[in-house]
């Protein structure tokens, strides 16, 4: 994201503080991404629609208090969406679901030296099942949402080095198990 884009979003947010209708531009811009982000953690369309509305309502409610903290506005939006999902799981005490798109997983695994087949997919599922939630959250934000470590740290309320460490550990195991050439920053 360029500095000009960040400034433009900030100007829209400043206008939204006085007139919430001005927020519509950012809603249209980020709705699909936030919906997909939540859907990946629920695998339920109606529930996702509810949580997504809750997240955007929370944004509208607190937009007056928004302050630029060195990360793009979208990071704040993801943080609120992530909090809504966590709140839902805390209330229900359900097992957290991670529903990953096969296409995205394929993109991630394209660097593997092994052919893509059902057996590899099952192995990968087994591997991801063994990962703790915090590592899965980091992987999701890093490889499915293309967030940098500063944004991940802000969204998950951890330090930047903590976000890097979690990604490194998760990828290290992935590399060993699947003979991947993938680098810690997500590039081959």
């Amino acid at each position: 994201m360029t500095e000009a884009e960040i400034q433009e979003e900030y100007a829209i947010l400043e206008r939204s503080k006085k007139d919430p209708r001005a927020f519509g531009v950012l809603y249209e811009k980020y709705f699909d991404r936030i919906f997909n982000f939540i859907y990946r953690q629920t695998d339920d369309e109606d529930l996702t629609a509810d949580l997504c509305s809750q997240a955007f309502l929370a944004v509208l409610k607190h937009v007056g208090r928004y302050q630029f903290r060195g990360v793009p506005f979208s990071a704040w939006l993801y943080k609120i969406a992530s909090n809504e999902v966590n709140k839902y799981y805390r209330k229900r005490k359900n097992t957290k679901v991670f529903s990953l798109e096969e296409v995205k997983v394929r993109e991630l695994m394209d660097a593997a030296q092994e052919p893509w087949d059902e057996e590899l997919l099952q192995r990968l599922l087994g591997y991801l099942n063994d990962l703790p939630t915090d590592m899965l959250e980091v992987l999701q934000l890093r490889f499915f949402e293309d967030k940098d470590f500063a944004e991940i740290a802000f969204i998950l309320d951890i330090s930047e080095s903590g976000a890097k460490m979690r990604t490194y550990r998760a990828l290290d195991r992935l590399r060993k198990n699947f003979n991947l050439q993938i680098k810690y920053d997500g590039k081959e």
Partner: protein
Amino acid sequence: MARNEIRIRRKPLSAGKLARYRNYESLMARHERDVRIKRLSKLILYVLIIVILVCTFLGVYIIREKQKIERAKRKAEHASHVHTRDNNIQGVTVIEQVNRQPLL
């Protein structure tokens, strides 16, 4: 035991499905309703606080007034009691004096 449930989706969400859920007008309507409810609750809270404060002041005022009246009554009663007792004493003295006079 698995910590999370991992699922693989063969098809990503279509643009049509996403568009079905995207509705800024309804979100704005909900937001405006929430703002109205919040304002109304604030107003009710302020009115309640004012009513409680007025009731407390009124209560304190009424109790003080009652105490004042009671004090005044007690003072008046005390004063009249002392006055009657003095009279009685005088009266008794007079009667005793009368009684002590030898009968002619």
